[in-house]
């Protein structure tokens, strides 16, 4: 595996990790479980929760898709293209 491929795999995995973390964080913000109290910890006002939930959710999903595309392109896609 070349340096570029290794870098791509690393970046792809990090993006997937960021995506999953963003979605988990969005979930914690929205449901605010009593054992974590994320909203209180961040001092986040109630009216901003929906906005952050949406932004984190969209970025999270996008990040996962982008990470998968990077890994797929640099590790699995065929090396031959038919013109």
């Amino acid at each position, binding site marked *: 595996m070349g340096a570029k491929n290794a870098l791509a795999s690393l970046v792809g995995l*990090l993006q997937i990790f960021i995506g999953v973390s963003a979605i988990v964080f969005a979930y914690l913000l929205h449901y605010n479980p009593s054992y974590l109290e994320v909203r209180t910890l961040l*001092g986040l006002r109630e009216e901003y929760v929906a906005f952050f939930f949406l932004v984190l959710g969209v970025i999270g999903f996008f990040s996962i898709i982008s990470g998968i595309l990077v890994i797929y*392109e640099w590790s699995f896609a065929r090396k*031959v293209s*038919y013109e």
Partner: protein
Amino acid sequence: MSEIEIKRGIGLSYGIILALNGAFGIEFFVLLEHSTFLAGPAVVLSLFLCGVITMITLFSYCELGASISRVGGEYTFAKVAFGGFTSFLTGWMRWLSSVATIALAAAGFAQFFAYFFPANASLVSILLVVIFTFVSVRGTKEIDIITVMTFILVFALLVALGLQKVLETGGLQNFMSLQSFMPKGIPGVLASIMYSFSMFVGARAVVAGSPQMRDPKRDLPRAILSSIAIITVLYCSVAFIVVSTTPLDQNLTQPLLTYVAENIMGPFGGLLMTIAGLSAALMSLTTTMMVQRSIIRGLSRDGYFPGVIASSESKVGRYLSVGIGSIIAILLSVTGLIVFIGYIASFASLMVFALVNLSLIKIRRDRPRMDRPFKAPLYPYTPMAGVVLTILLLLFIERSALLLGLEFIIIAIIIYHLKMVGYHRLRLAVGGVNLGISGITALITYMFREGTISLPVPENFKEEALILVIVVSLIFLMAGILNIISRKRKEVQLGDASFT
């Protein structure tokens, strides 16, 4: 879809076994309870009507299966009739129904398993799906005739001994007055039909095996119709025994059929039905894992998902083809909401039925001279009735299940349009958005550092938060560049002799 050389060795009797094999799944064991709750003693009528509606649609399956004897089942029918999004939606819904059945089988297995060991139901479901994901990748043996015969014998024993009890105790009074026969009226019966639908649809499994039939033109319709007749009689008889011997207003702590069998045959009956339930769950898992795998591979082969999934040579592809469905099935099954999963399975099956009926109408109109060894009787009334009835039944689905089903349709629309956009353009777009996110994140970080804007970050973690955002910004920047630049590819001209 590439043509595959197939050995034709299935006759009529094995065709019937194949159809029964598909139909004798976990659905009847786990869905009968709520179905009875919805319709009361009229569940017998609901199941009978379910059988009739299924048979109407299976006429369309027979005609299409006999004239388009190719791998792919419903997806191929819709592809021949409509192509494009409709065929993708048909494959997608068929896949969803398989995934919901896997979830149902896992949750049902956990329910029956509790008869022997009181283990955590969610954990049992997860373990079962994970084990079968690996088993399915490594390949499974064909389910044989003995399994089907065992099911018929267990149900026949329950019906025979139950009938004796009904006659002895005079349990027929439930059927005497209309009020006690349909406690929730016609809407209850219709809701029960909608809910019970997935108990019958498994018989279509034989259509997938039609390319291997010696004489599909003659045997496929016979196999489907015979199996539906057998299933309808058997299920209605069992439901009759259930409602005649069991008070319907009690909260059961064990599966309904186990309770009824114990009630009629004693502890041996409970044990027998539990083993049958466990076997049904395992059978459903084996079959639906293979079905969902072949559908997702077919869709990948046609370019809707990465080609690596369709490759039988790639190990990653083999695991991906089973793994995607398994993850969704695990998420559904750990909820333990059997009623909800049952509605999802029925929703997807009804959608497929409607699309298959529409495919028949379209193919008849567009290809009047096509070779049709079997013709759906009373055309166009049977497929039209199939479409109308399935849409009517969709009105009785639980709202949350309908919403999830609609979300899956939206996902289908997105996937289809992504395919239309093309892989290269998609990567360019994703790369561009990555660069945009990276730029905006960097700008926000700068403004936050300068005090122009405030963010909900605790004072103690400000520096750490800034470093984290900068790292995220850099990762998105690199991902953007990697998505935009392609790996060097060796280009092959179409005129190249080796390619042509």
